């Protein structure tokens, strides 16, 4: 119930937000726009930490488990858009897209993440390199 309300608030917030989707300032310094990927996996951890939250997702690849360390925006930003403690939890099956790190390809900038049983309804969408090209002043 609380999550649903949070989503409702977010739905309203979405309409009224003027500050555009944040270009990930510094995206080009760490991540490669040509290395876009999409995976399905199980959330291992959701780190409510600054300056960027991280979602660790376990993905089965060729019989092994690879833990992806996906970077989002800050806890403050997601809270302002309606996220709460229970918005995304360890153990949940998710489908996610992102851009891999230039050196460490198990790290990525998260583009979107959705629960596996509702892939068309992402919990999170973040401007990637496309947004950066719009010349938005940038974010961290």
């Amino acid at each position, binding site marked *: 119930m609380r999550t649903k309300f*949070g*989503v*409702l608030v*977010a*739905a*309203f*917030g*979405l309409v*009224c*937000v*003027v*500050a*555009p*989707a*944040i270009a990930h*300032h*510094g995206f*080009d*310094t*760490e*991540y490669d726009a040509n290395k876009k990927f999409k995976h399905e996996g199980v959330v291992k951890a959701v780190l409510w*930490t*600054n*300056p*960027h939250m*991280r979602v660790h997702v376990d993905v089965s690849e060729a019989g092994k488990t690879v833990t992806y360390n996906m*970077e*989002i*925006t*800050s806890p*403050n*930003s*997601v*809270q*302002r*858009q*309606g*996220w*709460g403690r229970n918005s995304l939890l360890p153990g949940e099956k998710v489908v996610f897209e992102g851009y*891999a*790190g*230039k*050196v*460490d390809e198990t*790290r*990525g900038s998260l583009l*979107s993440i959705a629960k596996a049983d509702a892939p*068309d*309804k*992402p*919990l*999170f*969408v973040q*401007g990637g390199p496309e947004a950066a090209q719009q*010349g*938005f*002043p*940038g*974010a*961290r």
Partner: protein
Amino acid sequence: MKKFFAVFIILAGVSLGYFAHLQAQGAVQQIQVGGSPVVPDNLVTSQPVPRLPDGTVDLTGPWVGGGSNGNIERDGGLKAGELPLLPWAKELMSKRQEKDEPYTACLPMSVPRVNPYPWKFALSYTAKGLSHIYVLHETGDAGAHRVVYMDGRKHPDDPIPTWWGHSIGRFEKDTLVIDTVGYNDKFWFDSRGTPHTEQLHTVERWTRINWGRITNDFLLDDPGAFSKPVNLKFTGRLLRPDLKTGGGELMEFICLEGNEYGAAAGFVPGQGTSIK
């Protein structure tokens, strides 16, 4: 109580109806995150500019924006290349790399830098009246706070350079004028690495042009790095006050607690703190 319940039911109905509408359109429950929600353009005059009981204009905010971030020329209303940088400063700038900017190591943003997180003017009073204005940035203070002395004092003759400098302020009618010297040269004006020297002198003129917007007419005067003073103009937008969580307030942000910037590309942040 009945009235409240009725209103609640109506609001719930409207909310659910709108939500269903979004669902029906195939619109997703996506949350475009990053940055801070602001009062939209069509609501900036929906309320009057607030004033303190003594008539002073209330500049508190919190505000989002109002300075430079990615590109001080673009952000401040100049054409590309219009900043009159001296040759040595242009050369330094060309060598700087975005990945090295001090801000990424959780060091202060300083002036006129902002990021998409809110900040506010916090007025501080003693028995003698308005003595200080603190500029509180949600993320870019690095544990310090910017102090503007409002008691009429002058700048010290030879200040030790600091990240935020020495600021003295006064009101000229409804405009807050902040005059600052004593900056160090360690911060960057933008993520491109626009440099400055310890000779930097800035004058900000903050005017709340309506409920939802504040302008910063900014004078950049640094004969050490620029061939002449430059005027820039920035606009800050009021943080939306009506969201359930964090609405209208600054939130805690401990930058150093989990800064993994650079790990994905094999570098360490903040290598550009020195001009050398």
